[in-house]
């Protein structure tokens, strides 16, 4: 983890000092995270791509004036969110399409292989998927930032414009809802399987 942060730090610094390769390295490293993050705020993929394009172009244009940061991901998320919101507010003057603003995200597991790899059974992920859809937007965003993106509570709070305490509460409530959903959904047979897996994990 520490190593990863340092690598990003150097990448960021060399980008600021005019290294174009570092700039495109940053793109390669963060494009997935940014797309995933952006999908929580808009469902219009082309619009999102435009925003990410503009974000990188801005970074490039103002590179000399960028501050140093040891958490590039956090920095980019915050900037992308601002960008999306600015563009959306511009857009909403011209269009009445409210759907864009109340982005209802749908958490589709991305790839079958990935699911097999992480040994999550289809049944469980279906239950969790349904449960996640019932969470508030903010809870979903907070979950994504904490688990998929490994951000800290203060960072999540700042990106979502809420206090650290509410970030914590949001996540706690979200997890609780998920936990209850799988508890309800489980047959005892599944539970047995789970115990077996866990035992072999601990006492290997």
């Amino acid at each position, binding site marked *: 983890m520490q190593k990863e942060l340092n690598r990003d730090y150097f990448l960021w610094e060399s980008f600021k000092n005019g290294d174009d390769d570092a700039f495109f390295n940053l793109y390669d490293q963060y494009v997935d995270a940014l797309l*995933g993050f952006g999908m929580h705020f808009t469902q219009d993929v082309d619009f999102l*791509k435009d925003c990410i*394009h503009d974000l*990188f172009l801005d970074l490039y244009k103002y590179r000399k004036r960028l501050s140093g940061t040891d958490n590039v991901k956090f920095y980019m998320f915050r900037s992308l969110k601002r960008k999306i919101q600015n563009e959306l507010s511009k857009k909403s003057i011209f269009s009445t399409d409210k759907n864009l603003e109340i982005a209802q995200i749908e958490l589709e*597991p*991305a790839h079958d292989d990935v699911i097999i790899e992480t040994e999550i059974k289809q049944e469980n*992920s279906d239950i969790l998927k349904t449960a996640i859809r019932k969470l508030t937007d903010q809870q979903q965003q907070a979950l994504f930032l904490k688990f*998929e993106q490994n951000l800290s509570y203060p960072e999540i709070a700042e990106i979502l414009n809420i206090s650290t305490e509410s970030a914590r509460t949001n996540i706690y409530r979200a997890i609780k809802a998920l*936990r209850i959903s799988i508890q309800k959904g489980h047959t005892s047979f599944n539970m047995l399987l789970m115990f077996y897996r866990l035992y072999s994990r601990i006492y290997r």
Partner: protein
Amino acid sequence: MNNKIKQEAEDILANEKISDENIETLAGRDVEKNIESVAQARQIYDYLKVAKFLFPISEKENMKSRIHGSVMKYNRRRKIQNWSSAAAIFIFGLLGSYGIYNHFTDPDIVYFAKKLEKTYPNEETRLFLQGGQEVLIKNQESTIEYEKSGKNITIGAEEKVVQKLDTKKTVYNTVVVPYGKRSQITLGEGTKVWLNSGSKLVYPAVFASNKREVYIEGEAIFEVTHAEEIPFFVNSRDFTVKVTGTIFNVSAYPDDVNSSTVLEQGKIELYSNEKSLLHHEKIEVKPGEIVIYDPANDSFQQWKINTNDYMSWRKGYYVFKSEKLSNILRKISRYYNVEISTEKKGWLDETFTGSLDFRESPEEVLNFITKTLPFDYKSVNNKISIY
């Protein structure tokens, strides 16, 4: 279920320091007692951890080349601004034209082509369209024809393919022809390209209004539709060919030291890709000439030849004049997708003159050569060894 256990799953997951390794230890010392909540926590954790949105690599690369293009445009504009504020008129006059801003940057298409995966499984000809859509073509000799809009494509006599195109963004298509196969592509504005074995052609589905630009790796013959105001650029590893309308051959295989071009009709200009501020190798080619690029000296060598010797491969035969056996063997190997090894290297520098019909089997081609170069060979399972 007792209350204490119920709380544990949330407590474990909400922990600031949670990671893949420590879920079990976060449950406290008595893991067995908390086993159910740990299992629940693990399940939820595993689910949340998996990235939910994965975009195709091609889309991300498209975005990247778009950003690259915008960055280059920005740099150009900024240079112009800087200069205009400092005695720019003088410098403008001195350095000539707008071309100088383009001088050090690869065109977007070259950037895109270089980012493409280097290797593909080499059994079928592949056509890559918008958004990573991929079409496999089984025929040994295939044709691909675009209609004007770039959206509708006919493969062979019958198969039709459609791709969606956004008018604002340039979409690049790619044809990859493996060893042992050939393909003939007709682009939307009428230009025809014959792609030889082991080649790759990258081109926009629709050309821009002010220039036409493609990228070639390997060998191809271009029959470019004439349009004086819309120059056609063929980018390759070592040089760029600028044409308005003509027929010519480009050979730029990654495993050949020298790239070359042969002009049959019209006029072309070659620009070396090696650039420094004061020197940019450029040469004009006349019909009936071959130009070979020498990478060691960044220079072109040019002389008269019989163009048919270099264009005949699209009709299935090669003409050689004092050509080294090593070069001929490499052509046979690509054309038929066979491995050729030589035990006695001495033969490789011997030369052969004559025409070889590649519509026959590789063995028959070799038999013909052995009439003047008496080497022996054996052929087993698509592998030929010469001794």
